[in-house]
């Protein structure tokens, strides 16, 4: 039994667990950065920038993530290669689109065809992170946009009365205070992000659900030393436990952060803490 779970192929699913966790860890701050930029753009005074921010939020939020993943990575990859092509092969005379083919000069390939495998893997990983970040950044932008508006107006007016500039007010008053309003939405987003990981295989990352399907499927003795019937049920059960456990831990951690953020805030929760203390 134990031999079943230690084949080289099973090592792949254990690696996939690590990959998924690392990806989540990297994606969360990246998406937050996108969200912050999006929210700032959406409330910018400069009208075109404001439209850009609002269009980003509205469009990306409006599209199901699967639909987005199915074409966006390829587009992103081609976009990067095209830019690099323009940069590194200025005297290339052939068209880039030859019929259906997308052809860039060898030096513009991302990564280079001859690059070692880990570079290819890291590049794929980076693209996946970027795509996830763009999608979830739109949701984060929506949450942060709401949170920025939820900060009491009086706070900002007081800051202005003290002679703070727009910029100072934004960074010193608004940003520190908005987190407590944003946290419930952001926590939820984190939960959604966790549960979007089964879609990673669309982005070229062989995630845990992909491997569970692959490993749990019927194995014919002709192609393996460890044959078994359809065991997907058990693999999926393990995944269910993994996801529930992960959610449970996340909930605990986020509750703590919320408690910490509420301290000293002029909100109901903050008042409750003060009276309790």
């Amino acid at each position, binding site marked *: 039994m134990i031999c079943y779970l230690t084949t080289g192929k099973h090592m792949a699913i254990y690696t996939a667990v690590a990959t998924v966790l690392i990806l989540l860890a990297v994606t969360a701050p990246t998406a937050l950065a996108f969200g912050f930029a999006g929210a700032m753009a959406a409330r910018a005074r400069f009208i075109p920038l404001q439209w850009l921010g609002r269009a980003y939020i509205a469009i990306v939020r409006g599209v199901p993530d699967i639909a987005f993943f199915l*074409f966006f990575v390829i587009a992103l990859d081609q976009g990067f290669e095209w830019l690099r092509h323009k940069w590194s092969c200025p005297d290339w005379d052939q068209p880039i689109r030859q019929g259906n083919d997308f052809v860039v000069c060898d030096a513009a390939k991302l990564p280079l065809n001859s690059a070692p495998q880990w570079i290819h893997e890291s590049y794929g990983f980076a693209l996946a992170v970027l795509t996830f970040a763009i999608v979830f950044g739109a949701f984060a932008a929506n*949450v942060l946009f709401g949170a920025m508006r939820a900060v009491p107006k009086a706070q900002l007016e007081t800051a202005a009365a003290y002679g703070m500039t727009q910029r100072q007010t934004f960074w010193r008053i608004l940003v520190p205070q908005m987190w407590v309003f944003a946290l419930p*939405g952001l926590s*939820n987003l984190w939960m959604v992000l966790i549960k979007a990981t089964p879609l990673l295989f669309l982005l070229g990352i062989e995630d845990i*659900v992909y491997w569970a399907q692959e490993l749990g499927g019927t194995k014919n003795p002709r192609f393996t030393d460890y044959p078994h019937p359809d065991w997907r049920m058990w693999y*999926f059960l393990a995944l269910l436990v993994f996801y529930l456990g992960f959610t449970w831990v996340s909930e605990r951690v986020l509750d703590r952060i919320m408690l910490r953020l509420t301290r000293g805030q002029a909100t109901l929760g903050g008042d409750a803490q003060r009276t309790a203390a």
Partner: protein
Amino acid sequence: MSCAEIFADYALRSIGIGERLLPRDNFTLCHQVVLIGSGLLWNIYFGTLALLSGFFLATAIALGKASKTPAFRLPATWFIFVFRGSPLFIQFFFAYFLFLSLKQILPVFAPFTAAWLGALTVLFLNTAAYSAEIFYGALLSVPKGDLDAADAFGFSGWRKFRRITWPTMLRLAWPAYTNEAIFLFHATTLVYFSGFPAWQQRGDALYYARYFADKTFNPFVPYPILAAYFVLLTLVIIAIFGRMNTRLNRHLPQDTHPKRPRMTMMR
């Protein structure tokens, strides 16, 4: 073939009306727009019915979670935890498996292995769990003063709930609930993608988009069409929910900006 003819042949293809065979070659933009739009009918069907039915279960579960009786509180809490804590992908897998096994024992379950009922059931339970969590959060924030006032007016039991607690809860939960509705419609694309088999090539919008992507080997046409449809659908949802929101808040003074409700829950 003109676009009008294509429309006549394929506009209802996803529910089995019209041309039996899908187009095989000479795919025009019109083919793609019409068929993917036809598939959207299923997304609307799943989303609308799951949302409507899920609403009632969600209210009950939210009350259960807020209840002081463990017999109500524990099952409600666990139901929410399991459905919110696991990917829909996995829920579909287990549901299909379960319905297949039940079908062997009880023939009543036969229709559940088809997407129109089976997937609908999963989506119904899923959205009920998410909405219940939103309603639960809102229930806890119902101002104490409102309830005291209700007591003072002699409201009690069902009447107090129906006239005071429930409308206030809805009002507080509405923005987050709007988000949940959007996510639910997006989640309907998973039905044929991973969970349930497609019979007779009757599928949802994503099913047809993949069909065209597979036939033309060009993902850059069908998926953006699908995306555009969903952006439109999302705008419609936001408009409808916005109307209801105005209705829910109509008794409040409108000149002072009603405190902008926070986006708290999303999937």
